[in-house]
Every structure is written in structure tokens, then in C-alpha cells.
């Protein structure tokens, strides 16, 4: 499914370890390489290295909110030459304000509670 191209790299920023465990397993089985980070500040630093094809970003994480990470990554003054796709994953019933941020800046949006790991894999596959 990844053909001959190098495996896509995914950064999972998630503080619920059961979820990252399930996502990691399903994505690895589907041929993706994954890294997991819980802490917001560390996650931002790691993401800014621009080593990932896709970033799965939870909104409720310690030290720095997902929305702030999203803004900082998508602001070329703060993070120049950033090319990773950001998929926001959350359980929050988004308030209008946050939803606007997500719609304007994120490359995709999933509600974690609505996707099982295999459905997540199906979703990730649709991202070019």
C-alpha cells in the first residue's frame, strides 16, 4: 500500500496513551512510521523539525494547547518552510472559534470518538 516509496512518517501528539497505542499499532501495520509525544512544548519542537509527512494533533494536551501548536506551525514567521500536513484529532465539541481555526489552518479534522483505529487508517490513506 505504500508501494516502493519510503514509508510515510507520522507524529502522534496525544496524551491518552490507550489511543496512541491503538493508533500506533494500526498505522504501523498499515506501513506507516510513527512517533508519539504527550507534552505540548516538546511536540511543537519536534514538529518544527519538519521530519514528518503527517501530524496527528490532539487539542487537549499538557503544557501547550493543540490550537497554539497549530497556529505556531502554520505561521511561516514562527515555523518557516513547514510542509507537514496537520490533522486535528479531538473529542472536544468545538466551539465556533476553535472550529474556525481548525477549518482555516488544519489540513484535516477528525473526531477521535467517531473513528476506530482501522477507520483512522482509511482516513490517513486519503491524505496525499
Amino acid at each position: 500500500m505504500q508501494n516502493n516509496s519510503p514509508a510515510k512518517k507520522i507524529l502522534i501528539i496525544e496524551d491518552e496513551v490507550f489511543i496512541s497505542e491503538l493508533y500506533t499499532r494500526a498505522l504501523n501495520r498499515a506501513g506507516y512510521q510513527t512517533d508519539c509525544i504527550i507534552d505540548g512544548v516538546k511536540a511543537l519542537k519536534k514538529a518544527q523539525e519538519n521530519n514528518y509527512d503527517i501530524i496527528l494533533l490532539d487539542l487537549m494536551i499538557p503544557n501547550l494547547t493543540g490550537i497554539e501548536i497549530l497556529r505556531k506551525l502554520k505561521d511561516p514567521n514562527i515555523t518557516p518552510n513547514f510542509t507537514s500536513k496537520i490533522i486535528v484529532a479531538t473529542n472536544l465539541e468545538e466551539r465556533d472559534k476553535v472550529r474556525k481555526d481548525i477549518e482555516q489552518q488544519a489540513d484535516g479534522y477528525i473526531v477521535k470518538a467517531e473513528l476506530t483505529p482501522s477507520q483512522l487508517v482509511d482516513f490517513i490513506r486519503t491524505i496525499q
Partner: protein
Amino acid sequence: MNDLKKLSRQFWIDNFITVSIIDIFIFSLFAITLSKKILPSHDLYLLVGIIILSSNMLISKFQIQSILMPFKTIWQIIVHLDSSTDLPMPKINQLKYGKDIVKNLNDQIAQLAGMTRAQNKDTLLQQANLKNNFIAKNLPLPFLASDKNENIIYANEAFAEYIGLADDDIIGKNLYGVLDMSFLTENTLDNWLKHARDNKVVASQNWERVKLSVNDNHPTHQFDLSAYYNRDNPEGIETILVLFDHSKQYSQDDQSIGFVALAVHELRTPLTLLRGYIEVLEEELKPSLNPQLLNFLDKMDATAQQLTAFINNILNVARVDDDQLELKLQKENWAEILESAINDIKLRAQVRGITIKYHIDPDLPLVGVDRISIYEVISNIIDNAIKYSGKSNVINIRSYLNQQNLVETSIEDHGLGINTNILPNLFSKYYRDHHNRAQIGGTGLGLYLSKAIVSAHGGNIWITSKINVGTTLYFTLIPYDNLSAEIKSNDLNQITKTAHGWIKNHSLYRR
């Protein structure tokens, strides 16, 4: 008084003197003829006597009428000035007698009538001046009046207290600035007033469950609203609004569903995790499990799915009721959506020994749907069919273009059936068929939600049923190209609608 003397003199000359002269003349003639015995018989004298008497009586009648004429005219004037009748003003100049006196009296009566009227008007004005009106001021209901420019010109104490503003922040201010209201439907105060101005002289209207956000210090008020419109109201009042507060009752309703929504929301993550781990188990264990254990695993998965569907229902009903359910109608291939939904759901049927058979006509037009919401509809309807299938083991699903060129989908079970007299109730919130409620679980939210979602898509939903034969549920969707141009103009590829709900009052504030 001179007029009166003049009148009596004129009358005296005109009537009594002339009539008396005529009478004396006739009687003299009569006396002469009698003394000289000119007439041949006594009978003839008698006849002439009677004629003379009769003509005298006739003359008296005219005299009396002449005397009464000025009085009659005055009476007519009074009746005429009483505006409650439409008797015309009498023609004074045509009066033979008493022209001057009637004219004078007419002037005086008119003056008096004018004074009385002015006095009445003053009293009316006083009543209309609401600031001085005891009732308006002390009415224990919040109450306000606005003018043609939608500025508030009066608000009672109860109103000021209700919205927590001082008079200065209310009087003279724009109605919609002071009252930032949200209504359940598009029939907002603003829209109603516009319609009333164009079409009505007077109009009134009531609304239920109007929401009001005053400021941060005041929690949201909820009330029923009554409005009265009058184009020609005195004192420049065009609209009167009365607020009937139900904040406590309505917010309790909201809170109960709000609490459930919160609780249910917290169930979603663990449940998704559970489904994730079941998925892992299936993947890992499938080759090594015996058929019965595999079946148990399927049942675990189906049950977790069912719980997810239930939870989604409750959350979605809460969203529908609070207008948080936003639909993004996109151009979609209906066959693909329906098929993938059936594939997802079929495990739930399968573990109960039911097969879902479906036929989707090829070449259906693309439809304008919100994938996630319409999935809920399909899921709810199929779950219902599974629940009420009884001993039958097939559910038939068909999708086709109906006579109105709408994409119609039918889901048919061959189970218990429903009494026709309760069919109309099935789409009500919490409604459940009491014959079955003991045997079959459910919340009575599924069809309520389905209807809200299908309606928001512009479609229809209905049921036909026969006891012990089965039930068929139908719903229609509008082909994307037929969706109204108005909805599409918002966004070419994406149409946002809400299930039903709070619409900001004024077009300026409308989101």
C-alpha cells in the same frame, strides 16, 4: 333675549294678527250672510260653519309647526354635534322663523361641544401617556413600547429590572440593541414586524422559548414573547412587547438534556477505545478462534457499535434541540454512502440472524447531503428495522428516483408492524409504542432525530405499516442540482444548514 323678543314679535305679526284679521273677515261675512238670510237653508249655514272651523284648525296646525321649527332645528344641531351619530347639519338659513336665534344658539352649542371634546381628548392623551399610566408602570410583566424606527420609547420598571439595565440605557435606544433575542424559527420579531408593516394595520403575534443574552452578569433569559403592532397608534407607539419569563423552566429542560449530553460525551472515548481493542482482538485472533468465540467477538463489536449509535443519538438530539447540529450539504454519490453505511451496520443485523438485502438503482443523481448526519439516519432506521423484525430475518432496502424526481430510500422489515393510529406519533421525541416498549428497548429519540436531519436536508420521512406484516420507512433526499439556488449561493460546494433552531433576531446579527 332681544332675539327672543324679536322672534315673538315677528311671530305675533305673521301669525296671530294676519290669522286673526282673516278670521274676523270671514266671521263678519258669515254674520252678514246669516243676518240677511242669503243662503237658502240652515243646513248650508251649518256646512259653511264647519268648513270655516276646519280651515281654522288647519291654519293652527301650520302655526304650531312654524313655532316648533326652530326647536326642531336646535335638536338636530345637538344631535349632529354628537359625533356618534351621522345626522346632517340642519340648514339654518332656510328657517322662516328664529333664524338669528337658532344661529346664535348653534354657535354657543358648538363652542360647548368643542370644550367637552377638548376635555375628553386631554383625558385620552393622559391615558396614552404611558409614563403616567399606573397599570403600565406597575405591570409585573416586563413590558416595552417602540416607535416606527424601532427605538424604545417606553419600558416599565419590570422590564428594566428583568434585563438589568437603567432607564437611560433603554429609553431611546434601538430595540434590537437592548434586546438581543434568538428565536426558534425564522419567524423572528424582526421578520414579523417587516411583514406587518407591509401588510397590516394592526397585528399581534406570540413566540415561545425566545432566548436573550443581556450581558455577562446576567445568565441567559428565556421567555415567551407577545407583540402587538399598530400602524396608527397614538403617541408614536408602533409596537408593544410583553415578555413572559420562563427562564427557570426552560433552562431546567436544557440542563437535563445538557447533563445527559455531558455524561454521554464522557462515555465516548472509553467506548471508542473499547471498540479499538476489539478490533485488535479480531485482527489478531480471527485465525485461531473457534466459530462460537468468533461469533461472541462479533457480538461484542456489534454491541459496542450499538452503544456508540445510542450515544451519538443522545448527543445529536441535544445538538438539534440547541441548534448546534450543523449540516454541511455536499455533492455526494448516494449509492456509495448508503452501501458503505449498510456495510458498517450489517454486523448488528448479522449477530441477530438478520440479513440486509439492498437494491440501489444505478444512475441516481448526486445528492446534497451531510455524510455524518445522514449516516445517523440510515443507522437509526436500520437499527429500528432490526429491533422490530421479530422472527423475520430479512430487511429490504431500496433506493430509487421517485415520481417527484427525489431520491427515495425505503427500509422494509417483515416483523411486528405498528398500529396505524400511532404512526403520526412516531416522530415525536421520546415517543414509544406502548405495546412494544416492555419487550423492546429504545429511547424514542431515533426517529425524532432522523426526521430533524432529513428535514434539514429538505427531504421527507414517513412510515407505512401493517400489524404482523411489517413496517416500511421511507425518506427522500433532494438531488444536489435541485437544491434551492438560495442555499447554494452561500458556498458553491458546501451548504451549511442547521437542523432547526435558534436564529438570531436581526439580520445584522444573523450568523
